[in-house]
């Protein structure tokens, strides 16, 4: 049963456009994450938030910015997309942090033309 929801499922856009992805979790967790998964299935953490505070900020281009309105929501904005941003973006949540079990959403597939 899905408890981490992501929208949209799929998004196609042109280079230079701005996109936003939404994530909501109904598990009551304190920590949320954004991961990028490339075509080789490599899964890399981008950001994590704990109770609306940024905890992990990996080396990602500045055009990526996370936005947290409350601990159940974590959105991702990409200001001016590049072709290399084509990937699946996965949102996850966990009860407390880092080493706890993470629950993933189904992902948003982004294709940049």
């Amino acid at each position, binding site marked *: 049963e899905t408890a*981490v929801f992501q929208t949209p499922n799929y998004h196609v856009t042109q280079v230079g456009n701005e996109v936003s992805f939404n994530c909501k979790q109904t598990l009551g967790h304190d920590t949320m*994450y954004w991961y990028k998964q490339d075509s*080789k*299935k*490599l*899964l*890399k*953490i981008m950001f*994590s938030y704990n109770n609306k505070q940024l*905890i*992990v900020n990996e080396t990602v281009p500045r055009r990526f910015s996370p936005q947290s309105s409350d601990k159940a929501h974590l959105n991702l904005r990409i200001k001016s997309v590049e072709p290399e941003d084509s990937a699946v973006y*996965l949102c*996850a949540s966990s009860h407390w*942090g*880092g*080493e706890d*079990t*993470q*629950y*993933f*959403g*189904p*992902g948003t597939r982004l294709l940049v033309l």
Partner: protein
Amino acid sequence: SQWGEENLQALSIQEGEDVTMNCSYKTYTTVVQWYRQKSGKGPAQLILIRSNEREKRSGRLRATLDTSSQSSSLSITGTLATDTAVYFCATGNSAGNKLTFGIGTRVLVRP
């Protein structure tokens, strides 16, 4: 094995066979987690094994952990076609604030 490889490892087996996949990690961790990702879905945790455990079982799954060699394995006995997926190991960091995922092992179980 995961880690140290550039490409996703792929295994193709017949339904009913057993399969074991390996994972080695570089930095200290107190837990190793194994996740499974089916096509079009996000990863889902299968098993979590802590540094004070050498083995953990859950149904047809068995995970082992050897902290001295910094390696873990996941075995599935009596595979089913529905076990077809990509399997990842994931380890924590010293700050305990994130997981690092291995490159994954793609397992195809032929019916």
